[in-house]
């Protein structure tokens, strides 16, 4: 199947207009010895056959009934209202480019302005960019910002309770600016008070995740004050669904708030595309990376929206830009905006409470099983939709049995990132898991561990 619309006659007329007789003649500038290579690709297929073939390929994935999946650790199965897909499937939106011509992009610009507004209210921050690639890259940009704010500081205090993939990605990003060093995340404890002790005059930022990677709410009282006394910035990675229920980072002094917005109406899709949320205090707006949409007026005083503060960005500032980001995750930001507007104040609270209650029910039931313990490192700390269960057998073996015998996708094996957490499973429970599926998990865990 080709989408090239030209008829033979049109092609001939066009070539004649250009003064050539054959299409091949257009490529005289290409070195002849490497021109027109034979490519080793499969023969083309029709739309009808393609759809069949792709369905077969998708079916080679073992079907995942989301109700019996308890895997989270950075990507989640949440309910997605049908309206989200109806909105982002509008061709006017998804086949458009970045809004450099505002007169014919008012729709997307306003939607992104509203996205920024809802993200600010949700996180308690003052400004939000119009999206980043994903949560981890947004965090890396936040860390780079903290180092740029204080060029003489070269240390980043990073909690071990931040998603290990995010921590790995920060290390990749800092390979370029090798002066920076990361401390804290290989310590034996993830205790926030221990992190405070690592703050000093070289520290550019302290990074925590809240609820943390293990699902638990961090004790943040007095944290921002300690960070600010040291002259550093507090960067908080959060779960946007948790903000329907819990006090947001902006209310406890975060300077930068980062999240992966995938839970807001975006499918897990094997890990991407997701949505990087990056929000800040207004003092940092000129150092923030990514597009920003601002409100203004046209020559007749009509309200309108434009991309603003472009002087931060690569197409104007080139080597001196705050970041190289150009393409972002705009359609995912539109999905999140549609989700947030539809769920609204009460809906998001309801989703968050459902996650909370179901996770607590699951934890309580699993905790009753012989040989299992819940959140063994910090049993008194509150948690949201994920928790750690220590198991009487290796997690990989238990997960294999859950899948083979019960069709259940078990939680994340924490031992694969950290040998100290051998036999520890991170279990995610959201509103899509029913009581029946949780009960099935509990029964299956009991059997699998025997």
């Amino acid at each position, binding site marked *: 199947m080709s989408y*090239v619309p*030209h008829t033979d006659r049109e092609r001939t*007329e066009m070539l004649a*207009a*250009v003064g050539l007789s054959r*299409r091949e003649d*257009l*490529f005289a500038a290409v070195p002849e010895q490497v*021109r*027109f*290579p034979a*490519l080793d*690709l499969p*023969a083309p*297929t029709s739309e009808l056959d393609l759809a069949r073939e792709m369905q077969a390929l998708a*079916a080679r994935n073992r079907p995942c009934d989301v109700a019996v999946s308890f895997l989270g650790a950075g*990507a989640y*199965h949440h309910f997605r209202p049908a*309206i989200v897909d109806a*909105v982002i*499937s509008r*061709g006017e*939106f*998804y*086949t458009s480019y970045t*809004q450099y011509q505002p007169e*014919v992009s*008012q729709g997307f610009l306003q939607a992104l*302005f509203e996205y*920024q*507004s809802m993200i600010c209210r949700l996180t308690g921050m003052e400004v939000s960019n119009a999206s980043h690639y994903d949560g981890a890259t947004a965090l890396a940009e936040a860390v*780079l910002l903290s180092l740029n704010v204080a060029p003489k500081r070269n240390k980043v205090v990073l909690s071990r309770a931040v998603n290990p993939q995010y921590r*790995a990605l920060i290390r*990749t990003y800092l390979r370029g600016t090798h002066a920076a060093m990361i401390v804290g995340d290989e310590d034996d404890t993830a205790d926030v008070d221990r992190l405070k002790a690592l703050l000093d005059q070289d520290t550019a930022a302290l990074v925590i995740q809240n609820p943390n990677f293990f699902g638990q709410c961090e004790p943040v009282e007095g944290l921002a004050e300690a960070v600010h006394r040291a002259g550093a910035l507090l960067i908080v990675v959060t779960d946007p669904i948790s*903000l329907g*229920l819990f006090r947001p980072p902006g209310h406890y002094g975060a300077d930068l708030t980062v999240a992966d917005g995938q839970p807001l109406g975006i499918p897990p899709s*094997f890990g991407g*595309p997701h949505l990087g949320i990056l929000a800040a205090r207004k003092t940092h707006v000129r150092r923030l990376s990514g597009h920003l*949409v*601002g409100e203004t007026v*046209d*020559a007749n005083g009509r309200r309108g929206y434009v991309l603003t503060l472009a002087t931060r960005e*690569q197409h104007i500032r*080139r080597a*001196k830009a705050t970041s*190289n*980001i*150009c*393409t972002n995750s*705009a359609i*995912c930001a539109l999905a999140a905006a549609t989700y*947030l*507007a*539809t769920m*609204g104040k009460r809906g*998001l609270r309801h989703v968050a409470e459902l996650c*909370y*209650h*179901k996770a607590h*029910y699951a934890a309580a039931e699993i905790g009753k099983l012989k040989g299992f313990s819940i959140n063994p490192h910090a049993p008194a700390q509150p948690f949201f939709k994920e928790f750690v269960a220590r198991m009487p057998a290796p997690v990989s073996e238990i997960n294999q049995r859950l899948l083979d015998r019960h069709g259940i996708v078990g939680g994340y094996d924490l031992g694969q990132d950290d040998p100290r957490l051998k036999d520890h499973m991170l279990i995610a429970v959201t509103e899509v898991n029913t009581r029946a599926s949780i009960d099935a998990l509990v029964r299956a865990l009991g059997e699998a561990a025997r």
Partner: protein
Amino acid sequence: MTHDDIPTVYEMSVPDRHGIDLPAPDVPLAPLPADGVRADCGLPELSQLDVMRHYLALSQRNFGVDSGFYPLGSCTMKFNPKVDEQIARLAGFAESHPLQAADTVQGNLALMHELQQWLADIGGFAGVSLQPSAGAHGEFTGLLMIRAYHHERGDARRTRILIPDSAHGTNPASTTMAGFTAVELPSDARGNVDLEAVRVACDDTVAGIMMTNPNTLGLFEERIGEVVRLVHEAGGLVYGDGANMNALVGIVRPGDLGVDVMHYNLHKTFATPHGGGGPGSGPLGVSARLKDFLPGPVVERDGGEARYRLSMPAKSIGRVSTFHGNFGMFVRAYAYIRQHGADGLRANSEHAVLNANYLRVKLRDAFKVPFDRTCMHEFVCQGAIEGTGVRALDVSKRLLDYGFHPPTNYFPLIVPEALMIEPTESEAKPTLDAFVAAMLAIAGETRDDPALVKSAPHRTPVGRLDEVKAARELVLVDRAKAAVG
């Protein structure tokens, strides 16, 4: 397009209205923590019909490829096949979790493996990683690999990256992020990078060069072989910016030209939708000497059996995305390549180049083309018309009144009043002829009634917007008051 002001979601919000019901809890309620619970998360309150009408009205104030001709240079605004959208939404793909055991996601891994192979073949490379999420992300990642390559050889003196003055702004920005210094190279009279300048700049502090080929003038670099040879002889590596790959599929493989590392823009060449700015996907192809440095994980196929697994390359610079990159874009690009086959992809590039040349010869009498030779998939002309005061921006805005999206303005920087026009292969001759007619009509208006052109657009929902006010006042969130607790 509707011209009425559309209230924001906060302006429409009515206390106690709601858009959706969720099931009641089917488990016993757990007590909420005593501290740290908020009263109000600050979201608006709307009915579902309010939300649908709102976004539908907004969509009607937005222009996409599905709306009309979108000749935005360097962006490859081609048709996004609808079947690809349907396929990416198949539950087997969309609901799969990135941390599932490899045994349960063999379909996904097979797809990624095939795509890695196909992209390697199309670009002439020894290895591919699908990790980067966008073109600029690929650039940054490729530069980190170049850095790791030199450092591994104990060569830490190489701190400079050569970049032609016609390059995209992301090139120098990525260079800075990767800890290098960008050195700008001039262009010569034929629009190629100045070979003498390359020769002078090449010493043992050069880590590499970033080449966009065809360059942003839409011209194939006629002396690419000599540029590559000079850089390689000086010990540097060649980064290829694959933004303009839509001109080259089946025409020439960058790896065969000596490029060591290049990103592909799946959202340009392979028709994954631009999504209003993203998400994209920027896989990297590399020559044999960089293969072990690729970001990971990548997908490997075990022995003869068709079992796929994720693995980290031996000297990997690490991961640059959460999980495995933008998988949803891989599905679309895979479907696109599968539909076209080798001949279909080559035909795309040929027709993209034919369309660009057709527009070039039809427009060049009215709008000067400074480097007027056979172009590739795009070309650059000058939008200012002498003696009238009309600028490229004015021509662009007037095009909006004729129902066309304007070309890229004021880029590349080396052409004053640049209009960079990329029609893509998707457009048929009648559309191109209508565009030519509009451009020629605007040229006529410019002579007869320049004020009409300078005050354009006249038929859009809003006129030219006050960008200075936007930057000065910085209203970045809705001022409508919704209580926050």
